[in-house]
C-alpha cells in the first residue's frame, strides 16, 4: 500500500519540483532520478500485487490487478528510459536553440505530470477518475507537443487538442450513461462508478444502456487510441512534438486509452452477454490496420511514418482484444508490452537520426550505417523488430494473434496478414535507403546515447525468445481476467 502511494506521488511531487528548478542540466538529471524512483516503487508494487492477486487500497478508490499492475510497471520503465534518452537529446535541442531554458522547465515539469496522469489512470478504480486522468495526461502532452512553438507544432497541438477534446467528451458521455444505469443498481454514490463494484454487478446493468454507452466509449477512447477514422491528430502530434514526447505518446498514452477501452469492454460483456463490443473493436481494429498500413507508404516524414506504424499496432491490439479468446488476449498483452518497448526505442533512434542529419525528411536521411553505425544498426534492428521478424517479441505476439484469429475467425486471417505485409513493405521501403544509401556529407556529429535503445530492443528480443515464467503467469492471469467477463 505504501509502495502504491509512493509510485503515484513521486511523479506528482517531481513535476512540481521540476517546475521550480531553473537549471536545465540539473533538471534533466533530477528527471532521471525521479523516474528511476518511480520505476523502483512500481516494481516493488508489482511484486506485492503479484503475491496477492489483486489489491484494493484507499477505501476502494484504487484497484490493482494483474492487468494494470504490469502496465504500471511498463509505464514506469519506459518513462525512465525516456528520461535517460531525453537528457542528451533535449540538451542538443537547447544548444541549437529550438527550445529555451524556460521551455525546458515546462518540458520537464509536464513530463512528470504526464507520468502522474498515466499512473493515476492505470491504478484508479473509479471510471470517472479514469476519464479525468486521461484528460490530464492529454493536456500535459498538448503543451509538450507545442514545445517548439513552430507554426507546424502549434497547429499540430491545436488539432490534437480539439480532436481529442471532442473524442474524450464522447467518452465522458458514455461514462455518464454507465453511471445512469449503475446508479439504479448500486445507488447514487461513488460506488456506482467503482470499477470493481460495476464488474461484480455487471450482469445487473441494463444491456441496452451499456451497448449505447459502449459505442460512445469506443469512439471516445478510440480517438485517443488513434483508431481510423479518428486518427487525424496522431501523425501530426507525433511528427511535430519533441522526440521523447513522440516516444511516450506512442509507447504509453495510447496504451492508457486502450486500457480504458478494455476495462469498459469487460463491463459491457458482463452486461450484454454478447460479442457486440468485441465485434465493434475488431471492426475498428481491422479497418485501422489496413488504412494505417496503406498510409504508411505515402509518408515523407520519418516520425510521421513511424506514427502510422503505431496506429497499425494499436489496431492489432484492439483487434486482438476484440476477438476475446484467452489466447488473443494473451497475444494482445504481449503485443502491448513489446510494442511499447520497441516503438519508444525506435523513436529514440529516429530522434538521434533526425538530429544527426538536421532533418526529419526521409529523402534526406541517408547512409546512417556508414557514418553513425550505432544509429544505423539501431534503426535497422528496430524496424526488423517492429515489422515482426523473428526472434523479436512482436513476431511472437503476432504469431499468437494470427493463431487466435485462425481459431475463431479464419476468414479474417487473410486481411490481417495482408495488412501486416503491406506495413512491413512500407517500413523497409523507407528504412533501407536511410540506413544504407549513399553517405550524406552533411551529417553532424551529435552526442548520442543509444543505451536505452539497446535495453529496449534487448528486452523485446528476450520476450521473443522466451517469456520469463513470472511474466507468462502474469499475462495468463490478466488474460483470463479480461476474457472471463462478469457473467
Amino acid at each position: 500500500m505504501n509502495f502504491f502511494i509512493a509510485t503515484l506521488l513521486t511523479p506528482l511531487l517531481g513535476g512540481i519540483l521540476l517546475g521550480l528548478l531553473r537549471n536545465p542540466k540539473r533538471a534533466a538529471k533530477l528527471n532521471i532520478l525521479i523516474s528511476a524512483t518511480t520505476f523502483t516503487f512500481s516494481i516493488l508494487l508489482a511484486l506485492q500485487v503479484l503475491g496477492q492477486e489483486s489489491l484494493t487500497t484507499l477505501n476502494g478508490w484504487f484497484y490493482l490487478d494483474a492487468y494494470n499492475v504490469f502496465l504500471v510497471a511498463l509505464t514506469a520503465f519506459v518513462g525512465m528510459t525516456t528520461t535517460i534518452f531525453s537528457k542528451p537529446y533535449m540538451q542538443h535541442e537547447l544548444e541549437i536553440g529550438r527550445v529555451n531554458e524556460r521551455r525546458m522547465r515546462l518540458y520537464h515539469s509536464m513530463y512528470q505530470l504526464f507520468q502522474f496522469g498515466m499512473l493515476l489512470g492505470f491504478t484508479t478504480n473509479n471510471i470517472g477518475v479514469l476519464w479525468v486522468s486521461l484528460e490530464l495526461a492529454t493536456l500535459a502532452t498538448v503543451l509538450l507537443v507545442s514545445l517548439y512553438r513552430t507554426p507546424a507544432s502549434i497547429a499540430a497541438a491545436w488539432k490534437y487538442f480539439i480532436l481529442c477534446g471532442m473524442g474524450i467528451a464522447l467518452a465522458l458521455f458514455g461514462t455518464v450513461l454507465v453511471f445512469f444505469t449503475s446508479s439504479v443498481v448500486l445507488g447514487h454514490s461513488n460506488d456506482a462508478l467503482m470499477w470493481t463494484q460495476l464488474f461484480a454487478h455487471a450482469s445487473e446493468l441494463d444491456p441496452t444502456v451499456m451497448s449505447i454507452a459502449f459505442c460512445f466509449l469506443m469512439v471516445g477512447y478510440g480517438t485517443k487510441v488513434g483508431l481510423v477514422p479518428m486518427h487525424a491528430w496522431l501523425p501530426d502530434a507525433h511528427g511535430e512534438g519533441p522526440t521523447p514526447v513522440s516516444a511516450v505518446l506512442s509507447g504509453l498514452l495510447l496504451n492508457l486509452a486502450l486500457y480504458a477501452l478494455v476495462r469498459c469492454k469487460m463491463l459491457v460483456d458482463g452486461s450484454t452477454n454478447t460479442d457486440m463490443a468485441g465485434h465493434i473493436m475488431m471492426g475498428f481494429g481491422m479497418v485501422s490496420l489496413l488504412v494505417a498500413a496503406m498510409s504508411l507508404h505515402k509518408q515523407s516524414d520519418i516520425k510521421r511514418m513511424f506514427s502510422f506504424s503505431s496506429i497499425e499496432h494499436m489496431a492489432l491490439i484492439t483487434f486482438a482484444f476484440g476477438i476475446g479468446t484467452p489466447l488473443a488476449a494473451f497475444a494482445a498483452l504481449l503485443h502491448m508490452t513489446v510494442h511499447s518497448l520497441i516503438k519508444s526505442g525506435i523513436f529514440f533512434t529516429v530522434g538521434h537520426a533526425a538530429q544527426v542529419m538536421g532533418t526529419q525528411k526521409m529523402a534526406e536521411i541517408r547512409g546512417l550505417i556508414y557514418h553513425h553505425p550505432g544509429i544505423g544498426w539501431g534503426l535497422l534492428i528496430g524496424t526488423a523488430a517492429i515489422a515482426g521478424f523473428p526472434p523479436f517479441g512482436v513476431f511472437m505476439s503476432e504469431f499468437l494473434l494470427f493463431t487466435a484469429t485462425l481459431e475463431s475467425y479464419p476468414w479474417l486471417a487473410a486481411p490481417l496478414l495482408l495488412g501486416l505485409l503491406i506495413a512491413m513493405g512500407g517500413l523497409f521501403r523507407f528504412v533501407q535507403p536511410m540506413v544504407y544509401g549513399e553517405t550524406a556529407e552533411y551529417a553532424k556529429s551529435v552526442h548520442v546515447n543509444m543505451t536505452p535503445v539497446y535495453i529496449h530492443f534487448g528486452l523485446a528480443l528476450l520476450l521473443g525468445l522466451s517469456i520469463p515464467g513470472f511474466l507468462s503467469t502474469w499475462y495468463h492471469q490478466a488474460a483470463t481476467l479480461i476474457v472471463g467477463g462478469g457473467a
Partner: protein
Amino acid sequence: MSIAFSQQVINGLAALTLLISFALLAQHRMLSVLHWFAAQGILLAITAAVVAYSTGEHELYISAIMTFLLKGLLLPWMLWRAIRKLHVHREVEPLMNNGMTVVIAVGVTLFSFHIIAPIEVLSDLMTRNSMAIAMACVLLSMLMMITRKKAITQVIGFLAVENSLFFAAIGATNGMPLVVEIGIAFDVLIAALIFGLFFFHINNTFDSMEIDTMNASLIHKDDDE
C-alpha cells in the same frame, strides 16, 4: 415546490438549453457567440440549483455554485478578455453552408431522441426527460466545433460540449459524484488556461485566428498522404 411543478420548470430549462445550443450554432458574430455561451453557463447553474432543491441532493448545490462561477462568469470573462486583446471582437465569421448545418442539426436532434427514448424509461428520476436533449446538445456543440473556422469559436464549441455533458449528468443521474465533478471542472479550467495560452501563440505565429491558415502549415505534410 411540488414535484410536478419542479418537473415542469426543469423541462422548461431543458428546452431553453436546446434552444441555446441551436442559437450557438447559428450565431456568426464573435461577441454574440460569447453571450450565448455565458447564458448557457448560467442556465446550467440554475438547472443544477433547481434539481438540487427539488431532489434534496446537497452535493448538487456545490456543483451549481461551481458551474455558475466557472462557466457562467470566469470562462466567459476570460474569453472576452482574449477577444478584446486580440482585437477580434468585431469579427464576423462567415457560416459555411448554414442551411446544411441546420439540416444536420435537426437530424442530430432526431437521432438523439431515437437513441435515448428507449432507455429513458429505465430511470425514475424526474429529470429523465431531459436526457435526449442533453445528448442532442452534446452532438450539436460538436457540430459547432466542426463547422467553425476560428480558434476562439472552436474553443467555445469545446466548452459548450462540456456544458452539455454536465447537463447530461444532471439529467441522467442528478449529477455525477462530487469528486468526479470537481475533477472534470478542474480539467476544464486547465484546458481553458491552455486555450488562452494558445490563442496568443496562434495569433503571434499565424497573424490570424483562422484554422485554415493554421492547417496550411501542416499541408506540406498532408499532400504526401
